[in-house]
């Protein structure tokens, strides 16, 4: 494994998006992973529609029929991959733009599919496996506890204590290592793309330290593969 890796340097990550005041983080995590996978499959970076997921995806957790993807009220990346697999794919952002509300009806147009899921899998809790999967398969959809993210402005977040109760969906785009003056040594970290706009964090990104499943970041990691589809 390389000592550091960042999919932003390889053109697989779209610009930071903003979910607004809507609990649709799960849809941004899903599109981010599929955008990366589609880039690997086709060589083209296409921004995909979160609004399609918000409006049309009501897929339920197979183990809990009451837990279904539900627009601004929340959802799950794995269920959204399942929806995308069943629906045939996702449209481009520009063809089905984000509105930040879930009051609209589903306007999915099958003739405008821009990216399709070939398959998706869950990655084991092992951090080396997570790193290997991000390098080999592209950005990964991950869940995290976001309690420290409300006040985060920059640097490598490495809280001494942090709950592992997962409540936010984000995108793991790479990893690196930086000198931590407070600890007087190099500390490895994950690079996370968030969906709260560029004015949050480090231009919309978050760095969280690696090594001990901080804030549950290693607990729910999904990788997706895309198949090439010609958009019309």
């Amino acid at each position, binding site marked *: 494994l390389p000592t550091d890796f960042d999919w932003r340097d390889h053109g697989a990550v779209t610009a930071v998006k903003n979910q607004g005041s809507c609990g649709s983080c799960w849809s941004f995590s899903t599109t981010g992973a599929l955008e990366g996978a589609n880039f690997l499959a086709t060589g083209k970076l296409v921004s995909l529609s979160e609004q399609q997921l918000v409006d049309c995806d009501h897929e339920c957790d197979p183990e809990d029929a009451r837990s279904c993807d539900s627009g601004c009220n929340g959802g799950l990346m794995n269920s959204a991959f399942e929806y995308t697999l069943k629906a045939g794919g996702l449209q481009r952002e520009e063809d089905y733009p984000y509105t930040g509300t879930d009051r609209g009806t589903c306007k999915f147009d099958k003739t405008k599919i821009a990216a399709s899921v070939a398959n998706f899998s*869950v990655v084991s809790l092992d951090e080396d496996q997570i790193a290997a999967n991000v390098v080999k398969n592209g950005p990964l959809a991950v869940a995290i506890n976001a309690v420290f993210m409300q006040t985060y402005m920059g*640097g490598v977040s490495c809280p001494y204590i942090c709950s592992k109760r*997962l*409540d936010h969906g984000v995108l793991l785009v790479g990893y690196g290592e930086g000198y931590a003056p407070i600890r007087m040594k190099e500390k490895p970290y994950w690079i996370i793309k968030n969906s709260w706009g560029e004015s949050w964090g480090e231009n919309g990104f978050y760095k969280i330290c690696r090594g001990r499943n901080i804030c549950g970041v290693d607990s729910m990691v999904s990788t997706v593969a895309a198949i090439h589809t010609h958009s019309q």
Partner: protein
Amino acid sequence: SIVSPDESDDLLIRQVVSDGEDPLLNPEHHFLSFKKRFGKHYANPEEHALRFGVFKSNLRRAKRHQKLDPSAVHGITQFADLTPAEFRRSYLGLRPLRLPSDAHKAPILPTND
């Protein structure tokens, strides 16, 4: 705080000085800057007072986060006028997960060499 043996050496040195201004000393000024920076407007004086109270509480929270998470910078973000519950309701949205027993697991990749 729970410290595992392998990270205890990380905690030997703790920052005890700061050259930055403490926002808690002048919350009115920082609330004014916050409103200007993030274009915040409140419907009436009651709402304004309520949000200022939440803002002050979040300043204390950011300070606590800074102590618990010294390698990051914590402070005033666009969410500084939201209570933790409002923040969770409006900006988070991950449903509880119960991975199905037949969930497809990614194959183990080689990580040596």
